[in-house]
């Protein structure tokens, strides 16, 4: 390891404060101040260079603690991306739901021969007409059903004397057998 004497250290210090030293020369200066053999005229600079040394020790790049210091940064980056991914997914779902849910607003649409007709009254009149046609058919259906039910009841009424006769006959047959 190369060392420097106080004279060389003085020269390097002058160049250091002129910002003319190389990285190698700055390293020599740090070694000079850290080994304890510093001339009294340079003693005022010990704090400066030793402070740097302490800082370097704290941020020692060869330290095994480095991956631990870097990992949280990586994790936070990943978390950051993941957070944005989930926000994007939620936004996509919201857009999807908005597009898929049928409109339930105040809408009335009439199309005749492929032309959009903006006439609310006409649309309602036409819709009412179609519903009325269906309703009139349903009324006929209900009337027909009622008539059929009435007819069935009439048939039932007409058959009721036969039912009583059948009952009498059954009773007679049973009493005959008992005798």
């Amino acid at each position, binding site marked *: 390891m190369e060392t420097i004497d106080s004279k060389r250290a003085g020269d390097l210090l002058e160049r250091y404060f002129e910002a003319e030293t190389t990285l190698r020369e700055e390293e020599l200066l740090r070694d000079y101040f850290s080994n304890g053999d510093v001339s009294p005229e340079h003693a005022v600079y010990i704090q400066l260079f030793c402070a740097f040394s302490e800082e370097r020790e704290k941020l020692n790049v060869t330290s095994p603690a480095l991956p631990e210091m870097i990992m949280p940064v990586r994790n936070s980056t990943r978390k950051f991306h*993941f957070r944005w991914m*989930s926000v994007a*997914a939620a936004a996509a*779902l919201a857009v*999807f*739901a908005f597009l*898929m849910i*049928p*409109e*339930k*607003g*105040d*809408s*009335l*649409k*009439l*199309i*005749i*021969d*492929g032309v959009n007709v903006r006439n609310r009254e006409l*649309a*309602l*009149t*036409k*819709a*009412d007409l*179609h*519903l009325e*046609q*269906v*309703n009139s*058919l*349903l*009324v*006929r*259906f209900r009337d*027909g059903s009622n008539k059929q039910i009435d007819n069935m009841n009439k048939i039932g009424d007409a058959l009721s004397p036969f039912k009583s006769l059948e009952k009498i006959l059954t009773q007679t047959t049973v009493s005959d057998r008992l005798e």
Partner: protein
Amino acid sequence: MKKVLIIVLAAILCPYIAMAQAKQIHLILDKYEKRKKVESIIISPAVLQMAGNGNYNASTKELLSKISEMRIVNVKEDAVEGTTPLRIIIRDDLDKVLISPKFSRVLKMQDGEELLELFVTKESDGVLVFLATSPKEFAVISIFGNIDKSVINAVMTGGIKVK
């Protein structure tokens, strides 16, 4: 997190899967509504409520709250595609959907030359479809929404009116 996303997706998609039949009817009506000699009317329940000037009782309001949309497509007898009457083409398309285990035919009524059929989805969240055939026209009246017994009864007794 993936599980949460899957659950959220499933929750969003389930109603749409259940509404697949309604969607199929919508698609058929969308396909033909802009043809020549075809009339299409789409009415939201809000319009139905306004059409009645809001003079509805609680049961009618509840009934309207179950309906999400009413669509009427009316095809004139002389509407044709190529040489085939359009009413037959639409009827064929509708039969592919309606004659399936997902639908049940509630009513079929023939009166002279007029035929009225009513189909309803077996699941309540779906559609009710009237097919009214007469010599002059073929009308598809569909009501979308939560089609339960109260809606079917109201429709059968003429309880749903536009004016």
